[in-house]
Structures are given as C-alpha cells and as structure tokens.
C-alpha cells in the first residue's frame, strides 16, 4: 500500500492541480488499485500496438465467438432432411386422415364442423398457415373427429395465367390423386422464399415433388400433359366459386361456409371459433345449466 502511495506522489507534478490526498481507507485502496492499473496499462501500451490491446482482442474474440454460435445454431436449427433437392416437410400431414371420398379433404365428412382453406401454393401467408398453424389444427381438431378440413384452390398470384405457377402447382396437386396432402406439404415447405412467379414451381420441379411423394408417375404425366388443361379448368372453376363467395385474399378460412377475416388465423382464434360451432351444434343435455366453455377455449390467452 505504502509503495503505491509513493508512486502516486511521483506523478503529481504532471497534473495541473494535484488531487486531494486519499483520506479514508477506502479511498486509499481505490487509489492504489488505480495506480496499479495505470502502471500495467503503460507497460502494455509501451510494448504492443493498439490492435493488440486487451480491449481489441476481447472485441475480436467476442465477435468471432458470436459468429461461431450463429453458425452452430443455424446448423442445428436447419437440419432439414432432403429428398434430392427437396426439403422434407417438418410436420407432414398424416396420410391416415385423408378423406377417401375427397383426396383434398382430411377427416370425417360427418365431423360437426367443416373448415375450408382457400389457398394459393405461391402465397407466403398460406405457407405460414400450412406449415405452422395447420399441423396443430389437424392434431387438435381433425384427428379428433371435430373438423372436416377441405383445401380449396384460389389461384390468383400468377394473375390467372393457365401456365402460371399458381395454376400449374394447383393442377399438379390434383394430378397426384390421394397423395395431395403430401404434395401440398412439400410445395409449401419448398416454396420460394424470395418471391412469387420466379420459376420455382416449374414443370420439372413439380414432377420431382410428385416423384418424392410416390405418385403414380404414368398417371401424373398423363394428367399434366398439354398443360394439364382439365385440371387448370377445375382450378379456375374453384377459384371462381371462391371469388363469388367473397374470397379476396389467401389464405381465407371458412367455417361451415362462413368466411373469416384475418388471413392466416392463429389457433388462438380458430380454436374458440370451432369450439363455439361445436357447442352450438350439439344439443344441451337436459338439466344443463347452460353452455360451458370448452377446455380449448378456456386455455386461450
């Protein structure tokens, strides 16, 4: 301690106004610490260039460490399985739920609620709905027999062009027959994140997806021949039905035929709406005090 005090005194002539001498033990201790650091900093400064200072090295190390974390995390986060150049769907639709009477529907036709999703395979919001919300909807409501889910074509992003990507993707999805939902999952999982109508859903790409989902190749090729004219006509007809019903954006969800506003509605909105329809459809048991909120509805935030 005393040696540090003397070194402090040696510096005093350099300062214009000498500092008040440390009065308390705390002040003396802090002054000693300051002197020690100053001495060590001078040693470092005298021997090394600025970029080798501890601060610069720590900054560089932190940036490198941050980048390493990012690289590790991005590798861990995106271990996307692929088939050829295709990314496998993370949450594929269970094939067992496909309605045998309508390959573009899931669940029982006798379910108390019918939910239609008006969608375009090129639409980013439809992608978000199909890959993040729909799997929960299927788990919670379709697999439990409460909802009959129907996919509806509303192909508009290619501006009505028969050979446009929205129309060709929708036609191809019809051409794979009972593999529709697997095809649907692949298309959304592999949707072009950089934009629409940029050639992602080319004929070769759609054929590779049909191949990946195990569609009958001969039947698919026959169906897609001549620009899939029949299927494109069916897509246009369904899009026209949607337009007449008031659909003007995708995705649009309809519950028992009634269009809901808001696009890719979250489960916190869809769940209670479906529960309300189920509650309204089921007759209240005699002696019941009245409608009771379902567990799903009450768990919503």
């Amino acid at each position: 301690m005393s040696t540090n005090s003397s070194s402090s005194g040696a510096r005093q002539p350099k300062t214009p106004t000498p500092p008040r001498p440390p009065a308390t033990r705390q002040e003396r201790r802090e002054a000693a610490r300051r002197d020690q650091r100053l001495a060590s900093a001078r040693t470092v400064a005298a021997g090394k260039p600025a970029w080798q200072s501890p601060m610069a090295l720590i900054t560089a190390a932190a940036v490198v460490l941050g980048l390493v974390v990012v690289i590790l995390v991005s590798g861990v986060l995106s271990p996307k399985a692929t088939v050829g150049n295709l990314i496998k769907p993370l949450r594929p639709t269970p094939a067992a739920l496909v309605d045998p009477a309508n390959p573009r529907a899931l669940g029982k036709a006798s379910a108390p609620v019918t939910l239609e999703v008006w969608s375009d395979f090129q639409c980013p919001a439809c992608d978000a709905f199909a890959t993040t919300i729909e799997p929960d909807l299927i788990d919670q409501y379709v697999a439990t027999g409460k909802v009959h889910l129907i996919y509806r074509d509303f192909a508009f992003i290619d501006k009505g062009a028969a050979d446009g990507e929205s129309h060709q993707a929708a036609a191809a999805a019809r051409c794979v027959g009972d593999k529709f939902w697997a095809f649907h999952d692949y298309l959304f999982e592999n949707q072009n994140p950089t934009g629409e109508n940029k050639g992602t859903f080319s004929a070769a790409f759609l054929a590779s997806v049909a191949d990946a989902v195990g569609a009958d190749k001969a039947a698919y090729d026959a169906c897609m021949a001549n620009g899939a004219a029949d299927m494109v006509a069916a897509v246009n007809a369904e899009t026209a039905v949607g337009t007449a019903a008031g659909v003007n954006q995708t995705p649009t969800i309809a519950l028992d035929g009634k269009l809901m506003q808001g696009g890719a509605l979250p489960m916190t909105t869809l769940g209670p709406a479906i529960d309300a329809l189920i509650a309204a459809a089921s007759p209240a048991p005699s002696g019941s005090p009245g409608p009771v909120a379902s567990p799903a509805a009450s768990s919503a935030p």
Partner: protein
Amino acid sequence: MARGRPALVLGGFAAVGLAIALYLSANALAGTVPACLPGGGCETVAQSEYSHWLGIPVAFFGILFSGVLLGLIVAWWRTGDGRFLLVGYAQGLIGVVIVLYLRYLELFVIGAICAWCVAYGATIVFGWLALLVVQRRARRARGEG
C-alpha cells in the same frame, strides 16, 4: 468513477430484457402465444421451427443471457472491479451478433416480425452500447485511455 447511475442504466436494460425473456418463456411453457403488439407476427415466429434450439425454446436462452448480464452488472456495481464490465462487454457483443442473426431470420426466412423479440433484441443492443460507453469512461477514469 461513480457507479450508481451507470449501473442503474445497464441494470435497467438487462432487467427489461430478463422480464421479456421470462414472459416469452412463460408463454412457451404454457403453449400460448404472446399478447399481440402492433405489427403482429408473434404467432408465426413463435410457431416457426426457429423458436426452439435443440428442442429448448429460444426464450430460455434469453433468460440465461440477461440473467448473467444482470449478475455481472450488479457485481461491478458492488465491487467496482472492471473485469465484470469487460466480461459483460464481451457477452453483450456476442449477444449483438446473435440478435442480428435472429432479426435476419425474422425478416428473410420466417417472413414475420415479432415485436417482443425486437424489444428483447433492443435491450441487448442498447445495453451493449451503454456498456461500451461505461466501459470507456471507467477506463478513462483509471487513466487507461
């Protein structure tokens, strides 16, 4: 250098970050979606594949990050040992890099912005900038630069 006010500012950023991370973690645990802020997007981000790292909600890492940062700031405030600031500075810089990556994911990969995540990122970035200033002042006060 007086440490009270700088510690309050730095601790404030870390505490706000910790509170946001706790809120997001509670939502992740309960399986609910954070309350909507202007701009929406939290539902999409929360349900994206990027909301979990190694099966753990990203918000949990936020608790760890902000909690450690707050601990370092409190330790510096109580002891005056500049090494705590230095570690906090390095940790904050790592956080800034990760925050930038997460914003990139939201903007260009997920295609949705979660205002809660942006707010958390802001506490990291501004907290680190404040740390940088405090660190420089502390060094200057020690006569190092």
